[in-house]
C-alpha cells in the first residue's frame, strides 16, 4: 500500500477548511488539481480560493496539473502577504 499524501492549508484557506492538515490516500494519476477539487467538495467554503490559490509540492511551487506522488507534502497557499 502506497504512502498517503499530506495536504496542508494556511491562513484564510486553513480557516475556511477548518483544519490545516489532512492526510489523503494516494491513487494512480493523482494531480494537485484533483486534490483541490476533492477538498472543495468536502468544504465548499474553499471554492472562494480556487482562482487564487498557489500550490506547493514538497516546498516548491508547481502548476495545478502537477502529478502527486505517494508521500508528497502538498500545500495550498492563499495569496501570500508577508513582508
Amino acid at each position: 500500500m502506497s504512502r498517503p499524501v499530506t495536504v496542508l492549508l494556511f491562513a484564510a484557506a486553513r480557516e475556511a477548511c477548518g483544519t490545516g492538515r489532512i492526510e489523503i490516500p494516494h491513487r494512480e494519476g493523482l494531480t494537485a488539481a484533483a486534490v483541490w477539487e476533492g477538498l472543495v467538495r468536502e468544504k465548499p467554503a474553499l471554492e472562494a480560493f480556487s482562482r487564487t490559490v498557489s500550490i506547493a509540492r514538497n516546498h516548491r511551487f508547481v502548476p495545478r496539473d502537477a502529478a502527486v506522488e505517494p508521500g508528497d507534502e502538498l500545500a495550498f497557499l492563499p495569496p501570500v502577504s508577508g513582508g
Partner: protein
Amino acid sequence: MDDFRITTDRLEEAAIIAGAAGVRDGAVVAFSGVVRGRNLGRRVLHLEYEAYEAMAVPVFERIAEAARSRFGVATVRIHHRIGRVEVGEASVVVVVASGHRGAAFDAARRVMDEVKRIAPVWKREYFEGGDVWVEGPKEPVTE
C-alpha cells in the same frame, strides 16, 4: 555568511547586519519592513503573522541565490518574524552585503520584492473594529 530565519523573536537589525560584510564588501543595505500604525485609513492595533515554515526558509534560499547570481552580491540574509508583531516593530529584515553599493541596493530591493511575491507568509491585521487576513497579489504563483 547567508542566514535565513523564521522566528517569533523580535528582529534586531544590528544583529542581522553584524558580520554580513566580508573583507571585500564596501556596502551593506538593510531593509526593515515595519508594522504601520495606520493602514487604509484604519488605526492598526497589531499584526499576526503565519508562515509555512518548512517551505519559507528554502524559498528565502532560492530568492537569495537568484539575487546573488543576478547582481553578484556576496551575502544575503532574510529574517521574517511570525506571531504577534506590534506597531513600530519590524516584521521582516533583509540584509545584503556587496563590494559596491549599486548591486547591494538592487539586490536588497529585488529580494524584498520576491519575499512579498512568493514567500509563504501571511498576515492578519487587527484594527479598531475588526480583523482581516491581508491578501497579496491574487495571481497564483507557479514558479
